[in-house]
């Protein structure tokens, strides 16, 4: 049911783990719905230099987490905000219909991490 690309990212997920002193952290989902994604980003000069994730979830949840961290690296914040769940799914050669919500989760986690980054920035600027 999963594409080869999904299976590759599921078996060999990229960017697993935490970033120490991240510039932004975002979480999406919750354990009762069966998937949680936690995304860490390191930003430099408005560019995402590094991204890591921790995920509790199904094969698609792990693969989309892996893929989204790959996709954001090197992108500016604005570019990263334009990464849609569909783009993540497409980059994985598609997802089964009932698993599309996992790509939504990835998009949400990324946006939460960016929001967190923006908030920290505002806070810092206001200090």
């Amino acid at each position, binding site marked *: 049911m*999963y594409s080869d690309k999904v*299976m590759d990212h*599921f*078996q060999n*997920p990229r960017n*697993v*783990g935490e970033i120490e002193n991240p510039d932004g952290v975002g*979480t999406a989902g*919750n*354990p*009762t*719905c*069966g*998937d*949680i*994604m*936690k995304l860490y980003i390191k930003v430099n000069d408005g560019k995402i230099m590094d991204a890591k994730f*921790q*995920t*509790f*979830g*199904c*094969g698609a*949840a*792990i693969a989309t987490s892996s893929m989204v961290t790959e996709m954001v690296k090197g992108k500016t914040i604005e570019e990263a905000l334009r990464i849609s769940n569909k783009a993540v799914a497409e980059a994985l050669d598609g997802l089964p219909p*009932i698993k599309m*919500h996992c790509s939504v989760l990835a998009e949400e986690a990324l946006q939460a991490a960016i929001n967190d980054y923006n908030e920290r920035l505002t806070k810092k600027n206001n200090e």
Partner: protein
Amino acid sequence: MRFVYLDHAATTPTDPEVVKEMLPCFTESFGNPSTLYKIGREAKKAITLARDKVAVAIGAKSEEIIFTSGGTESDNFALKGVAFANEQKGKHIITSSVEHHAVLETCKFLAKNGFEITYLPVDKYGIVDPEDVRKAVTDKTILVSVMQANNEVGTIEPIAETGKIVKEKGIYFHTDAVQAIGAVPVNVNDLNVDLLALSAHKFYGPKGVGALYIRKGTRMMSLINGGHQERRRRAGTENVPGIVGLGKAIELAVSKMEERSKQLTFLRDKLINGILDNIENVRLNGHPEKRLPNNANFSFEFVEGESMLLNLDLVGVAVSSGSACTSDTLEPSHVLSAMKVPIEIAHGSVRFTLGKNTTEEDIDYVLEVLPPIIKKLRQMSPLREGLDLNV
């Protein structure tokens, strides 16, 4: 790579002995059992013989066995058949909250059609208390349906006790014995049941064939109308090869039950102990003793079921996460929910169901490949002990 199939509760391979008995029905004794000439009579004889075997296996009379297309049809037939034939007496049905979807969805259908359904709770092991059944009965109750053994967690229900109570009340009693045949003794009189569903592919018979036991005198409506097959209770040209396969399979299942049960219990306990001893934060779901000899269902905390299942598949181990029938839903197991297993832990459940060909080497292999998978997934997980999960 080693292939270790541990999803026998989902389905079993058809026993080559069973296939061998079925084969002539396709190309030689291929007649329609309703016809009068020689190969028709041969086919009729073959299904009569199979019917006798099913009857003997469950302590019934041959004329009380109706062949169906599987466990799901048998459950539908039992519930709808009794409901619509007895609704003038009352429209209340009692069942449990851990039944298979074949029962639960049928109850949902009946609820839409004006029946009132009571879903009895279970204890933390998944057991339905017979006293709860007694208390739930009203003067409008026409049917009680409680499964003999649970397909997810393997818990064996006290059907005989429940049956006694239901019988005293003069109400029909159905049990879904789909997972029980060949695993534990099934006798319709000892169990005090009026209806009993079984499905061949769960005990090394072919898919697409099952049976419903209907105690003589039970008021039933047909689910499938048409020709006069199966004593006019179930129309349609009989699935002769399937029925012959079911007959052979149940004969083998019952005759080898004791021996297989012993071996399965030994291997199952080795698996259970191996997992509980070597992996932390894991719990066994279902009853520690009153469980099917081949079932071991665990919740591995902080990891999700499907990702374990896929990782095990990659190393040749086939297991399931919850009921196979529901793998395309995202809801966690209704059985674990009914047992009050916290939902995030229910998501981390994996069911291992052993079979007659499972070897000790298979179990050793699972015990070898499983811990690193759990470890890897836990390292990837944002959850861990002590963490407030509702982030």
